[in-house]
């Protein structure tokens, strides 16, 4: 069943866009994670694993509550426990780590397969696992290190923003279950409006560096965060200025057109050379081939 609301489709020429008749008045959505309200209960992580039927293997204790250690094909939402020392105090900073649903997704740009990664009109970046070939280009291109290749079926997986729930008007399962109101879901406009009010409130209460994490380098994100100190997103294990990598851009925007031109030019010159210069034969091997007296001028 086609959703007919695809605004971007991997490996697809602009000359042949995906079905988008139903884009209509669809508004961009966003998940808002307020790190200042999160108490690290992991309900979001469990809800994600329940809704999506994911069961990461139980690991071993690594000196942190963070388990598993990183996102994985069986763990699309991970509660990160960052221990940060600041102002002579220990801050236990929690990060709701999952796909950021970039407005300008690097994974989609890098994808090797037509339609394996799509962006819906509401901004959700989704993987079509049936099409995925498991090349891993998305995993290496992502500035947030989100997609993971499952060695079992060799396909890439990540948070879908519960596109199967949002498509029928429900909120993502992590948001539904959040115990402290640290997670919210709505239109991007509403979430940013709310986030600004919340940041102003935090500033009033003395958190002068509080701010909204909505990195411009990837065109803004479908998961917006409120951080205690916006100048130090690294303390939340988030990159300071995420961008589409230079290597990805050189590859898709420079090598591809230039390489294509080079291949076609070489083939073109070869063909032209063959037609104009003609056969290169050893006359002794082919007696009678070239009869100078009776040769007709073909030029």
């Amino acid at each position: 069943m086609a959703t007919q609301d695809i605004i971007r489709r991997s490996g697809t020429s602009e000359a042949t866009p995906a079905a988008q008749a139903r884009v209509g008045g669809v508004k961009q959505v966003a998940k808002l994670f307020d790190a200042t309200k999160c108490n690290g209960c992991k309900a979001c992580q469990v809800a994600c694993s329940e809704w999506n039927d994911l069961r990461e293997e139980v690991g071993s204790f690594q000196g942190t509550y963070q388990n598993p250690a990183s996102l994985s094909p069986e763990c699309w939402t991970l509660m990160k426990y960052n221990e940060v020392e600041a102002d002579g105090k220990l801050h236990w900073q929690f990060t709701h780590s999952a796909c950021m649903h970039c407005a300008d997704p690097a994974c989609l740009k890098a994808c090797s397969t037509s339609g394996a990664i799509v962006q819906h009109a509401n901004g959700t970046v989704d993987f079509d696992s049936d099409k995925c070939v498991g090349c891993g280009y998305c995993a290496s291109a992502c500035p947030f290190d989100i997609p993971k290749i499952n060695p079992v079926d060799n396909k890439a997986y990540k948070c879908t923003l519960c596109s199967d729930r949002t498509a029928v008007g429900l909120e993502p399962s992590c948001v539904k279950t959040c115990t402290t109101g640290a997670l919210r879901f709505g239109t991007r406009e509403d979430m940013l409006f709310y986030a600004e009010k919340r940041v102003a409130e935090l500033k009033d209460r003395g958190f002068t560096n509080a701010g909204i994490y909505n990195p411009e380098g990837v065109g803004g994100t479908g998961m917006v965060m409120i951080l205690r100190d916006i100048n130090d997103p690294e303390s939340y294990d988030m990159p300071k200025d995420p961008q589409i990598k230079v290597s990805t851009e050189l590859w898709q925007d420079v090598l591809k057109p230039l390489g294509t031109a080079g291949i076609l030019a070489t083939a073109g010159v070869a063909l032209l050379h063959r037609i104009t210069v003609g056969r290169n034969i050893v006359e002794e091997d082919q007696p009678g081939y070239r009869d100078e007296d009776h040769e007709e001028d073909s030029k």
Partner: protein
Amino acid sequence: MNKQKMIVRHKLFDRIVHWFIVAVGLLTFLTGFSFFYPSFQWMGAISGTPQLARFVHPIAGLMMCVPLLLMLVRYYSHNKWEKTDIAWFKSIKAVMFEDEENIPPVGHYNPGQKILFRAFVIFAIALIVTGIMMWQPYFAPLFESDAVSWAILIHALCAVGMLVFVIVHFWMATWVEGSITGMLYGKVSLAWARKHHPLMAKEHEDKE
């Protein structure tokens, strides 16, 4: 028909290796193309499904590059750089327009072929290294995502470069008639050698 004296140019082992590389190379290039140009995914269909194309590509790639390196070892002695090679490049116009009187005599390989040889060595090594770095799901997880991302770029760059050289190789081999039969059956006529590789012909005649 007059009878032409035939001389050996390629030994059986090298010919088998060459055509093996052609076969798996075709598979490698077609499947690789399907990832570089997603719209041309049908090219990868030579190996079945897109998923199979991805599975087959690194294996076929290794089967192409490793024998290629072996072949390069076997042909190494013919590809050493000589001082006279510069003069050949200066007369490249004469080469392309079959103006043989103005081409400095060359041996088993002309300098153009030596460049091709060197390019294949560099590309094969680079493709193996970067290919292993990006090989999912076995080796790629062992590297930082930034490193893999650069490996993908270099891999694509080398693949495009190699394809350009393969086109040139195919172009020259089909243009200089007698080359392909030489690679298929091993022998070229003495007249062919005198015309295209005079020093190789001379060496043969000196031996006799």
